[in-house]
């Protein structure tokens, strides 16, 4: 009988086009496959980059060779310049994310639950949010100078906007059925907030946070390019001033990788939070 079973499995495998795999490979292969597929595009870009340099399609001063960029990366990492710059930038991101995130969450919840707040506040907020960060900077420098405060305010504002928007939207979009059920159950305000509002709006709130994170990176680079003497954004402007675009490319890659890592971390946090919060479904 066992023999027959085997052929049956082999037959199915052949039909789906999958090679028959030993059990270990079957558990490792799918995630590995996903990683490899995700790396395909970066690898293709790297290949195109190398080709562009080798064929001299672009001046080597504008697009330095991957090997040179790697060398510069190692040099900057070894001298501690990159680490120090990244640390400063990440501190700025963290402060901005904390301040902008908390304020944004509070404002968003308020706008989401209170019709009055919505009427009074939302038009003004939307108008303020429409002004690009760059437009605020001269005025902010006049008030706060060019020190850390300025940078953190600019980054916080960048985080605040998407967080407020998605939080209020997330709360307003809670299905009517849930709200009616809660009303029937006569839930207390706090229970209502923790049991219904937050869990139900969690996915949208988190997508707001993740959008906020990417905005934080944009704001960080803008503010460090304008008025800073350290940080990863400053390193990139300085590289451009020195006509050493390998430094700029190192900055682009580092910001990309770090931004991706933080986004993954936020997604993990969302997953564990939704497990921790009671299921609303």
């Amino acid at each position, binding site marked *: 009988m066992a023999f027959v079973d085997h052929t049956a499995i082999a037959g199915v495998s052949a039909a789906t086009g999958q090679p028959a795999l030993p059990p270990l490979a079957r558990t490792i292969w799918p995630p590995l496959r996903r990683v490899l597929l995700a790396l395909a595009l970066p690898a293709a870009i790297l290949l195109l980059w190398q080709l562009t340099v080798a064929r001299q399609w672009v*001046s080597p001063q504008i697009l330095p060779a991957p090997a040179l960029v790697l060398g510069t990366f190692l040099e900057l990492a070894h001298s501690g310049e990159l680490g120090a710059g990244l640390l400063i930038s990440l501190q700025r991101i963290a402060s901005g994310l904390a301040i902008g995130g908390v304020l944004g969450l509070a404002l968003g919840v308020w706008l989401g639950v209170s019709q009055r707040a919505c009427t009074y506040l939302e038009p003004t907020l939307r108008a303020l949010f429409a002004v690009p960060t760059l437009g605020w900077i001269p005025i902010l420098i006049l008030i706060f100078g*060019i020190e850390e405060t300025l940078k953190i305010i600019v980054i916080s504002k960048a985080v605040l906007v998407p967080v407020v928007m998605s939080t209020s939207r997330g709360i307003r979009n809670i299905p009517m059925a849930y709200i009616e059920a809660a009303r029937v159950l006569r839930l207390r305000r706090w229970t209502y907030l923790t049991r219904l509002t937050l869990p139900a709006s969690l996915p949208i709130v988190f997508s707001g946070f993740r959008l906020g994170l990417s905005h934080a990176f944009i704001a960080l680079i803008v503010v460090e390019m304008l008025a800073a003497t350290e940080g990863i954004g400053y390193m990139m402007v300085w590289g451009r001033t020195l006509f050493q675009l390998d430094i700029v490319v190192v900055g682009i890659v580092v910001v990309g990788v770090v931004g991706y890592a933080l986004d993954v971390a936020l997604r993990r946090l969302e997953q564990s939070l939704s497990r921790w919060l009671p299921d609303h479904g």
Partner: protein
Amino acid sequence: MTSFFRPLAALLLAATTAFSAHAQNLPEAIRFGGFGQGFGQPYGLALLAVAQGKGFIAEEFKGAPVKLSFEYLTGTGPAINEAIANDRLDFAQYGSLPNIIGKAGGLPTRIVASYGYTTVFALSRKDLDVKSFKDLKGRKVAVAKGTVLHWALLKALQDSGLTLRDIQLVDLKTADQLAALTAGSVDAAVGSSSLLTLRDKGVGKVFYSSKELGAKASGFGAITVTEGFEKRYPEATQRVANALVKSAHWLSQEANREEAYRIWALSGVPVQAFKDDFDGVALKDVFNPRVDAFLLSQYDDAIEFTKDNKLIRNDIDVAKWAAPAYVETALKAQGLENFWPRRNAIVARH
């Protein structure tokens, strides 16, 4: 026989003249670039703006199908280096530090002419009692790092017996310097005459101007040509140099001062800035186009500075970089050999 050879000879002659016309080889287009102070106007400053505005360059190529284009980049030095690397410019007028940074980075440029020098100013916060750089020891001074102003700051400090280590240098661009000084985040700022708006608004006090020290502490730079262009079109390069010398000569006439200010003001820089820069200064001294021992020693000095401050990775052979012959030929042809002095090196050239 002759009846057979004559047309052949005529054909040959026609071919050779056509060929020599081709060998004279003027380009289809010449692309000029320069700094534009970021005011977004398609007009520039200094020597190149006059060569364009008074039509001196166009005159040199009259009758020839050469298209001239002028581009004034808001990104100044770094953007000009990138434009040269991307083969978008043949001639470029920009500051000595980005000149040096570009050359050290492998840009195939050659120095054809000096574009004149610019006055450097230093302003302090109104509430500080600053009479000279000596009073700024240990204080925050804003300057755009990696520009000729950075170098000029060192020259000013040296004049007061100080070095860059005696102050806290804050890297800011002009617009942010204005805000930072107004907010009191920095104690002083070093920049071009565009800083003087703060003096006019009563926010800052001018305590230093490079006028006192003259050319040796002022902003300077060059009009460069790419090696490729120079090699292919030596005749066109010479004609451009001719036009630059004519422009410098025109600028040297006192009668033309007001008109020159008006040409430069097209860039968006207020006329007052040029008055601050040049009133009381002989424009003939400022716009000496010669690539002479003085200019090269200035470059030597600035190269030393960029090496000390780790702004460049490779050394530069200034003697090979300079192409003084074009301006000298133009001076001879225009009978101006003795109009400008051949200036000596400011420090012994090595």
